[in-house]
């Protein structure tokens, strides 16, 4: 499929990412065709293994949708997720891949517009890269 219709795996926190996704659907916003949404109980559950597996399977990008800082139901889950994403970006760079393949996106549960925007932004970034 390549850059025409990139495959994006979105790990969505049950508390913010998933409601935002549902909201985007209810608004009838256009979401990319290659979107794969995986619900996780907390942003911090987006394991290194999950993200690498997704890239291994051929995903063009992995996005972790979690809560804003200070909003996490589990206190620091979103901060752990962000740190993990930053760590993985570094690993990707060492492998010679583009670190933009993994993104951490804080999003509010009632902000489906932002959810769609972030996906669109990522697609543009991917298009520029190729």
């Amino acid at each position, binding site marked *: 499929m390549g850059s025409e219709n990139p*495959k994006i*795996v979105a790990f969505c926190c*049950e508390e913010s990412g998933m409601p935002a*996704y549902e909201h985007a659907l209810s608004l009838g916003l256009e*979401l*990319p*065709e*290659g*979107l*794969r*949404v*995986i*619900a*996780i*109980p*907390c942003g*911090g*559950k*987006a*394991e*290194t*293994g*999950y993200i690498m*597996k*997704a890239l291994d*399977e*051929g*995903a063009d990008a992995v996005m972790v949708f979690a809560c804003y800082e*200070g909003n996490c*139901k*589990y*206190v*620091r*889950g979103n901060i*752990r997720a962000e740190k*993990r994403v930053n760590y993985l970006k570094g690993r990707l760079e060492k492998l010679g891949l583009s670190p933009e393949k993994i993104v951490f996106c804080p999003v509010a549960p009632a902000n489906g517009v932002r959810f769609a925007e972030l996906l669109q932004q990522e697609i543009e970034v991917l298009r520029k890269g190729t």
Partner: protein
Amino acid sequence: MSVGQSVLRIPVEPPEIQEITIAPEVAVVGDHPVCVAMADALSTMGLAVTLIHPYESLEGLMDPLRVLVEVDESVAEKYASLTKDLTRPSIKVVGRATVEGIEGQWGDFRLSVLKDASRMEVKASGIAMAFQGISKLPDAYDGMDVIGLSQFFSQLDIHKGCYGQKSESIRKIAFVLDVEQRDEKWASATAFTLGRYLKENFGTEVYILCQDVKVSLDGMEKGYRRAREAGILVFKYEDLPVVEGTAGSWTIRFRDSSAVSKESPWEIALEGLDVVVVQERLRPSENQRNLLTQLRISSEGGFVGPNNPQFLGRTSKKGVVVGGDTWYPEYPTEGWMTAQAAAEELYQWVGKGSYQIDVHRVAEVDPSKCATCLTCYRICPHDSIRIERYGMRNVYITTGAREGGTWEAARVKVATCDGCGLCASECPAKAIQLIYYPDVEVLEFLEKNV
């Protein structure tokens, strides 16, 4: 390879219910006046309360309110109803005691208490905490002879209107508020109430300098208007006021930004002030810091409130609530509301007697893989994974070790686990799985759909 969007949702299975019993007994810990309110509320709800405080008597605990009771009717009303009836048999008061450590979980807390140089253990199912903050003058005025608000409070003679060693009433006083903390309402409310009292009873000239007038407090809008009517002058500043002179004849210079436009503020000098009172910074006490760390409750600068402002009194740990300055510095009327909310929250945790827990939505450790590296123990937001040190040997066994054998692994306490999966995602040995949402599901979804 499939085309089109696809979604993997968290599987919802019928809950697997396990019943646990919780004894309806709580401990109220701290040195803040709202401890009394919390103990009162909890015992009214029918719980057995142990109130542990460091003073000789309950009057000592209520002492910080002494001045406000005389000045503010709304405080006096509640104060009178609180102090009237505290000799209920369901409240056990332990005075001259400090809590040094707290161990355990919801339903099974063990407090080690130091009373009269001897140690004792108190058991409780839930804990309510309220400590007083320690005040410190703001850096800009540190080392000067100005007075902090709470110090002024404790040394003010309310019947003569005089302060400290002097015998005549104060003629001119200025309150400088919002120096370092702009969102604490207690200082604003205290200054207005106290200022109006001084003005009405002793003819004191009162000036209040602040960044914002805070009226979002119960009765404060009225209090502010009455203070203005009584003749208190209120100024707004943006740059910190300069305080000069010595005790007895202070001068304050600042630019008032409220009267005219912000571009051309008025230069104002207040001269010949007897007393300058500065809003100080409240810092959490050592004891409070210690206990919060032991319970692993997250707090912002030592205050729990800013972390979850929508749920009064709630903490990140199940079965623990806070009030007083441990929550956030508050004016007494507001503090009592927080205390009531905290007590009701705690009642939800311990009042019902037996609780049904969904043992499906939890994490589980595979003991054969666990390396007891303590990673999960550090990460768990609810403190529900425990590993206990066994005897003197450097062997770790779990709290629920099998009989007759050691089981060197972490163990999830089902009652307090919320199933967030943070431990599972960080475990280096991959020994932890969420029962309701195992890794296999996500990996299979990725294989099939990406």
